[in-house]
């Protein structure tokens, strides 16, 4: 089993994801340069956080056209596991591997802080080691994390159990106050229809050691590892 972490110019959480997989999960992992067009040999591909190509236009808007994204599309079509974190989530939406879009936070400011998310789906390849309703403490760090989709898409996401995580308070209540960016229905993470592509705004790779304040992110990565082995 092997992980790949995609490196776009401007990715800046690539090394953090790499360390989380290599040092904490102790799994094999490579960096994949954005001009790569072959993902053979990988079982899970991570699109990390950052500012791909500077994100001066619209987050993820340029990255979706990079050579590696064609390969990611094929990889996903073949059933490979793909997880986009923060900027990676934005890119997956831009590439239509996930529905909806990520808009500027309703605060119009970048926000970096620890917060709580509630596990809404406990059977997915990314969350099956959690239990439904479990509250995870994982930080966010983004300027454009306000998830938006049309009402019919939201209905579909809900009916098909494709909402992975929702922002909540420390007791697991999904409230307006616990929504850091104005996301529709407090959505922090979603799945594609096939269940093999996930996107989330919080950074699980930042919550993999007690020393950093939380180990809850390990549950996400360990879910992937167990599903693949």
């Amino acid at each position, binding site marked *: 089993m092997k992980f790949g972490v995609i490196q776009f110019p401007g990715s800046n959480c690539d090394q953090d994801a790499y360390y989380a997989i290599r040092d904490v999960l102790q799994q094999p992992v490579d960096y994949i340069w954005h001009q790569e067009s072959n993902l053979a040999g990988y079982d899970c591909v991570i699109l990390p956080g950052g500012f791909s190509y500077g994100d001066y236009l619209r987050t993820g808007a340029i990255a979706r056209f990079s050579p590696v994204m064609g390969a990611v599309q094929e990889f996903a079509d073949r059933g490979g596991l793909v997880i986009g974190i923060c900027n990676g989530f934005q890119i997956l939406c831009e590439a239509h591997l996930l529905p909806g879009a990520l808009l500027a936070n309703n605060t119009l400011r970048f926000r970096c802080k620890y917060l709580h998310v509630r596990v809404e789906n406990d059977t997915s390849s990314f969350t099956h080691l959690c239990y439904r309703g479990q509250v995870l403490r994982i930080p966010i760090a983004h300027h454009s994390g306000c998830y938006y989709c049309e009402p019919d898409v939201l209905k579909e996401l809900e009916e098909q159990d494709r909402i992975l995580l929702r922002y909540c308070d420390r007791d697991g209540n999904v409230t307006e106050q616990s929504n850091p960016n104005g996301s529709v229905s407090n959505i922090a993470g979603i799945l594609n229809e096939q269940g093999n592509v996930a996107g989330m705004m919080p*950074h699980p790779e930042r919550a993999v*050691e007690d020393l950093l304040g939380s180990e809850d992110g390990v549950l996400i990565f360990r879910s992937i590892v167990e599903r693949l082995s």
Partner: protein
Amino acid sequence: MSANREPGGRTVQATLPIPPEVYREMGLNDAEYQRVVEVLGRHPTYTELGMYAVMWSEHCGYKFSRPILKLFRKYREAIEGSGLENAGVIDIGDGFGIAMKMESHNHPSAVEPFQGAATGVGGILRDIFTMGARPIASMNSLRFGNLDDPRNRYLFEHVVGGIAFYGNCVGVPTVGGEVCFEECYSGNPLVNVLSVGLVRIDEIAFARACGPGNPVMLVGSRTGRDGIHGATFASVELGPDSESRRPNVQIGDPFTEKCLIEATLEALKTGYIVGIQDMGAAGITCSTCETAAKAGTGMRIDVRKVPLREEGMTPYEIMLSESQERMLAIVQKGHEDEVARIFTKWGLNASIIGEVTDDGLIHVYDGNELVAQVPAKSLAEEAPTYVLDTEEPEYLKRVQSYDLSSIPEPDDYNQALLKLLASPTIASKEWVYEQYDHMVQTNTVVLPGSDAAVIRIRGTKKAIALTTDCNGRYCYLDPYLGAQIAVAEAARNLACCGAKPLAVTDCLNFGNPEKPEVFWQFRRCVEGMAEACEFFEAPVVSGNVSFYNETPDAAIYPTPVVGMLGLIEDVQKRCTSAFKGEGDVIVLVSGWTAEDEASCDLNSLGGSEYLKAIHGLAVGKPPVLVMEKEKRVHRVVLRAIDQMLLNSAHDCSDGGLATTLAEGCIMGDVGAQISLVSNCGPAAALFAETQSRIVVSLPAEKLGKLREIAEDEQVEITVLGRTHGDKLEIAVNDEPVINVKIMDLKEAWCRSIPRTMED
């Protein structure tokens, strides 16, 4: 101007004198112009004149500050020895070093706050990775005028926005700093940015143009007309026409910087880069002459080979452009392609613009035309220096002798405390640091909001701690003492998180040095700081001087900001400032005896935030400091943290003991019951900013061990009370004076800045 036109010409023969109004406009005085003529043996060309003007400005040449900066030991040794490098490197063991530097971007931020602050961050990062160090953390120290003024709110919002824009994109965590508000910074904000990087000691890169014949490569962004004469602009006072200086401000591109970081570090790993220097102030001029001067070589470059952003740029403009995200690399001959390929991979330009020579001269060609030919050392190292007059300012005696006994006790101590907590200088800066990515790189183990930020060093058990400190009001009231307190407080902040001081980088912000009163403040501050840094074993290893921080109305307070680096040997043994739950004993570790503690001399409110926030006064003398006592307090707390006795440690500074206690409660979400003793009124007991004091909390059963350590270090400790309930209750001489719900303290402290900025 005239330059001879012989293909591959060997000499410049400009004979026409430059009119005085031209060189004066560029910032050179008559004597300096004459000096240029003497050095060259002829009148300079226009391009040469521009190069001298910018390199001999205070910003680049330190012509006023250099004689005083020699009071810093390491600086003196460097000047007399091997020369200065871009940022000091401090050995932290295990084969690793920390590169650290702080720099100001005050003037650009005053006219264009967003880009001014953003490019400040970019510049300081380049200072770090040009040494081969990966930047691992940034901090900033900011000063603004009062937030009632919309202009100051605008500056505050956009400076923070610019730092966030740049710092977040490049993926270097901004882990903390300080923000203060005083009227004197109105219209002249201070934006000081600090960055630290991690480098293997055996992989440090040097800014030396070694090896005649080696190609000189310009990497990174294209060169445009932005920022021409930025350094000269930084060397004059701000005035009504400063707005027209907006084109002097550079524009930042953090995406390119991020690629430049990765490409530079990757290229250095090849071993084919023999020397490298970032381009900041004075652009190509500065980087060519400094690298050549350091190596005792010369350089021949052709400005036509510089990739340009716009057409029709003159050699003068190309040599002086301060376009961002560029570096000058001197590459081992024969390996140009390997190095260039790495930069190209990251989407960056890499162009050979010339080569190293052995004649000590900088030759600048414009195609075949020689437009400048100057000795590298004359630009880089021989800026004229001046010993300026000093004179003790008149205001000092007046403010110091203010009769503090005439100040009445407040009617309501609760209200006074709430008002202090809501004072923007004291209030929570969450609104600021939430806008900064302070966790990227996943090494930040103590997040912003505590006394110091802590960054673990991967692959070791160690961590470093960082803090910036300076109380400008203290420095205004007594520059020497104020500067010493800045150093003492920085060391105290480090002690509170379990770190021993290692080194200091400074950013010395002052008014116009050509005014004797300002230069007196400068000299006294440097004297105080140099002495304190030696005492706390944290030598100044790098820094920056920013003069001319004045508007026609007034100069800023003398503000010598201290950025201090500390080391934690075992990252598990660290401490934060929040109380940790019910029932802990709260103890004051103080350098003073119980008798001192109760005395009025020691507990003077002089210079305090209380006087400022409640009475609108900046008067009196700053609190007394006895460095030996201060150091003992640090030793007690460091030993206690090392033995894992403490649940929290928080220094007493702005707002006094009551503020320290309130912050411990708010951050820990727990109340406290406290009893104080005082001979001089509750206000002094609560709000005096008496030095050398740290509030710690610990389980009662560990108190005995703490006492043993304290006795061993000859430090008195006093049990003040315990953590309990949901209120902060303080009695002075058994008289209850403070009784406030933590919720209300939190509202005052946390909501103050967001309310001001958003409502």
